[in-house]
């Protein structure tokens, strides 16, 4: 071998990589070539300098932000399971109401409004799921707002669940109001997630 060793061959020698083709010939060349020996020495030195670069330290403590994200995730899990129960009860109610519409057409306005609010609420839930908010990075301030909104929604869900359990006739004005409040809060939650995402360039 007359040509000097390539960087690939020098790296294979440095790392003892036996899979590199022609390694035995490269070793023979290396043992008699002072230039390649200097090159390998420089490679070792460069690697040593890389390993000796200063250790970079984070400016702040990120653990509180990690804890906030964990808390948000826990609340979301809890809130979603409650929401699923409420939505299932709502779906059963809607089916009942639709059946009754045929017999009592005068109830249609209130029940139509209720169905619209339920449908809008479900759409917003789906939008949040599609957005995959659990996997997004949010800052601490946003996390606090998210927690507050989710707490309010969880509170509403508990009240809605109670209403759905005890109601036997047409929806009450109170029930309609609660569902409309839920749509408003869900809208706010979606806005918070989207605003945060746009501010970090996602």
């Amino acid at each position, binding site marked *: 071998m007359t040509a*000097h060793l*390539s*960087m*690939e061959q020098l*790296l294979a020698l440095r790392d003892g990589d036996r899979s590199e083709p022609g390694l035995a010939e490269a070793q023979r060349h290396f043992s008699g070539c002072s*230039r390649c020996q*200097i*090159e390998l020495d*420089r*490679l070792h030195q*460069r*690697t040593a*300098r*890389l*390993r000796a*670069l200063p*250790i*970079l*330290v*984070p*400016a*702040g*403590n*990120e*653990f509180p*932000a*990690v*804890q906030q*994200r*964990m808390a948000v*995730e826990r609340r979301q899990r809890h809130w979603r399971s409650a929401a699923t129960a409420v939505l299932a009860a709502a779906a059963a109610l809607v089916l009942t109401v639709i059946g009754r519409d045929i017999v009592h057409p005068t109830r249609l306005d209130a029940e139509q409004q209720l169905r619209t609010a339920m449908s809008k609420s479900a759409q917003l839930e789906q939008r949040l799921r599609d957005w995959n908010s659990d996997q997004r*990075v949010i800052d601490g301030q946003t996390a606090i707002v998210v927690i507050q909104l989710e707490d309010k929604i969880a509170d509403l869900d508990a009240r809605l669940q109670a209403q759905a359990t005890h109601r036997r006739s047409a929806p009450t004005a109170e029930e309609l109001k609660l569902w409309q409040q839920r749509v408003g809060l869900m809208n706010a939650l979606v806005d918070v997630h989207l605003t945060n995402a746009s501010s970090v360039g996602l």
Partner: protein
Amino acid sequence: MNAMSLPDADAVIARARLGDPVALEALYRAYAVPVYNLSRRICRTTEDAEDILQETFFEVCRSIRNYRGDGSIWGWIRSVASSKALMRLRRNKYRDTDELNDDFAPSRSASPGLRMDLESAMARLTDTARAVVWLHDVEGYTHEEIAGQMGKTVSFSKSQLARAHVRLRSWLGEEALA
């Protein structure tokens, strides 16, 4: 690089797996610096490195139950961190190219005063090349492991490392002897 040791590691890990916040914070305190250092050496900005630090420990807190103790805890946390860092590079891919970019490299005849220092030269490498150099030469990953994490071949990893060292040699003014 060597991570900080974690006193009474087994007990801390056992408590962390049960979700004990004090134990999780102990893990953070023991390994935040090496995770940040790895992230910052691979990514270009402190913002990216801070995000990766947060994402890594969020993942550690969520998945510590899945850690079976087969390898060291630092090895496991480091694999989470390097995976997050490489994911971030893919997200920032618009800044990267498949080819090493030496448009801004000093010419071969540059005077010694214009030589780059090692950190500047590393920063000048493409994201992929810098990640391969750091993971292989400093963190000690094999080409097989790097290829697996990057979704590339072993020869891709080897080629990136060799080409990166050729560029570093040139930019550091360590040209091959005539």
